[in-house]
């Protein structure tokens, strides 16, 4: 039996559906991300698990226990809020120990545990500081220590990194993952940042408009998206509008040019489809199974990646552009704007989805 199970969970707010038909099984010790744009229902789901919202229908079952009648303060879940929600009138140590004090644990035990937790988040020297004396990243770690101190059965994180600046964000997220692995605690992480979700999760749940679009490992979500939404939300996506030529062989035509895709395609010949590709799978220069002549529109040097935008010469509208990512090399000669270049890619790199699919 799964550690945590969502069964047909449905949530409405006065007629507006926030979450529908949410089914998911989470194993013990898994790090799951709920990923999606704002309004997709991910935070609502988290709050339902925590007990701050009641589902309109469906069940949440943790370790075989239906949570329907358990109030939030009896669920033993540690939540880290987006704004940290540290109690301003308590020191860091006071905050971390609060859950234990409220449970009536003896003073010595509370102190010992607080010390352990502060060490875990590497803030041992900061126990006597007040929240207003701590930086954003430090407050975040205190919030984490506080949630973990009560030895919760689940760790819930509500966009914990969004208030931090970019550099700190990466550090803190690594630390969260390290601690989570060390303690083997089942975790649900809510975020709208797909890079964040993919870099730390065991599995990612992509949500849109209250529904699950796809659940899978980061690699699978990224390389084998099941819907157009997932394909475009996660990572950068190249899209070429093609027409099915030979469904069995997986051949499509792009402006009279034949493109080979991994077949078979389950659309009849003549139907419009979208050919999808990731930027890093494209190569500059001839020599692949598929080739497209194009013109360089812009070159953006981003450090380790050089991002080139190209317009296919065959393209009739002015909008189609392909994004191609190159890894930086010191000996690299950057392409120039206006140059003609051939883009090539193997059949395995692309996939096809019906046009107008949602």
């Amino acid at each position: 039996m799964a550690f945590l199970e969502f069964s047909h969970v449905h949530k409405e707010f006065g007629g507006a559906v926030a979450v529908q038909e949410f089914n998911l099984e989470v194993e013990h010790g898994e790090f799951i991300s709920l990923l999606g744009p704002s309004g997709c229902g991910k935070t609502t789901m988290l709050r339902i698990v925590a007990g701050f919202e009641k589902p309109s229908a469906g069940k949440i079952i943790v370790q075989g226990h239906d949570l329907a009648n358990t109030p939030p303060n009896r669920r033993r879940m540690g939540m880290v809020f987006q704004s940290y929600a540290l109690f301003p009138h308590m020191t860091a140590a006071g905050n971390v120990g609060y859950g234990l004090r409220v449970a009536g644990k003896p003073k010595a035990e509370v102190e010992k545990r607080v010390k352990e937790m502060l060490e875990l988040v590497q803030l041992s020297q900061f126990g006597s500081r007040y929240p207003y004396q701590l930086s954003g990243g430090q407050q975040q770690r205190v919030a984490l220590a506080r949630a973990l101190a009560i030895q919760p059965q689940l760790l819930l994180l509500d966009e914990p990194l969004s208030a931090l600046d970019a550099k700190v964000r990466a550090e803190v997220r690594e630390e969260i993952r390290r601690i989570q692995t060390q303690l083997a605690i089942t975790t649900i992480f809510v975020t709208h940042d797909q890079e964040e979700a993919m870099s730390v999760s065991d599995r990612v749940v992509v949500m849109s408009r209250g529904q699950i679009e796809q659940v899978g490992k980061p690699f699978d979500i990224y390389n084998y998206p099941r819907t157009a939404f997932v394909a475009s939300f996660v990572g950068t996506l190249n899209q070429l509008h093609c027409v099915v030529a030979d469904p069995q062989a997986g051949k499509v035509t792009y402006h009279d040019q034949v493109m080979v895709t991994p077949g078979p395609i389950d659309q009849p010949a003549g139907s419009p489809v979208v050919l999808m590709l990731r930027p890093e799978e494209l190569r500059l220069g001839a020599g692949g199974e598929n080739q497209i002549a194009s013109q360089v529109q812009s070159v953006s040097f981003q450090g380790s990646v050089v991002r080139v935008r190209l317009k296919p010469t065959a393209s009739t509208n002015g909008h189609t552009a392909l994004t191609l990512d190159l890894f930086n090399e010191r000996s690299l000669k950057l392409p120039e704007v206006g140059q003609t270049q051939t883009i090539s890619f193997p059949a395995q790199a692309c996939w096809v989805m019906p046009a107008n699919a949602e």
Partner: protein
Amino acid sequence: MAQLTQAPPAPTASGAALGARRAAAGQFSWNWLGVVPFFLFIIAFLILPSSRLITDSFQDPTGAFTLANFAALFRDPLIIKAYRNSLEIGVATSLIGGVFGFLVAYAITLGGAPGWVRSGLMTFSGIAANFGGVPLAFAFIATVGRTGFLTALLRGAGFDIYQNGFSLYSFFGLLLAYNYFQFPLMVLTISPALEGLRAEWQEASQNLGASSFQYWRDIAFPILLPSILGTMLLLFGSAFGAFATAQALTGGTLILASLLIGTEIRGDTLGNANLGYALAVGMVVIMAVTIGLYALLQRRASRWLR
């Protein structure tokens, strides 16, 4: 302000930087001119009179230095009684007005009262907090005085409050009248503080296993306490130093420090003018301590909630 008549400085040099550079260079900064009128006014009409009172309180009628006036403060039964009553009414109204005000504030912020009730009560609090003095006394006389509206109403229903020991023209009556502007002040100060209690704090506390009672005991009240205590100090201060309403309602039957000073100004009832000054200085000292504590609490509250 000499600064205004100069040519506008280059866009890159803001006025503050300019002034600071000048000050750093040891040159005379015209900045100070702008605030001289204010300081002159304050010195003339506030500092000077107050310091005269202070120096005179340390003198005897011949002008020699003495502490006898202050000693008398602690020995003269009339003065002791006056201070006692004033302190009592200050403490009583700050407690009653404070608690009542807190409950009303809770009712209109977190307690689930509908929106129109909230804005109505907030508006009235704003008006009532500024309503005092003689009109307040008149209002209460007209309501619960011997022939007041409510008194008559209750008498008609068979219950005569004056027969049963109530009197508006007493300590208790004054308390009732003072609360009219005390509890609204608490409502006005505490409502924003109550709203400032972030919902996440309660959620976080629940998440950590706390019950509603524990949340209030460990988190909400401690956070609110500086504001509550601070406002209560203000309530105490305003009741302690009040004159007009007390005069209008008790007219001398109740001995208060402020009223005593009043009679002293009009005629030398204490027999020694300098004693009157000591009395006044005593009041100022009490108020200074009160406001000092208030300022300290304000600072603590704002530091946490940055």
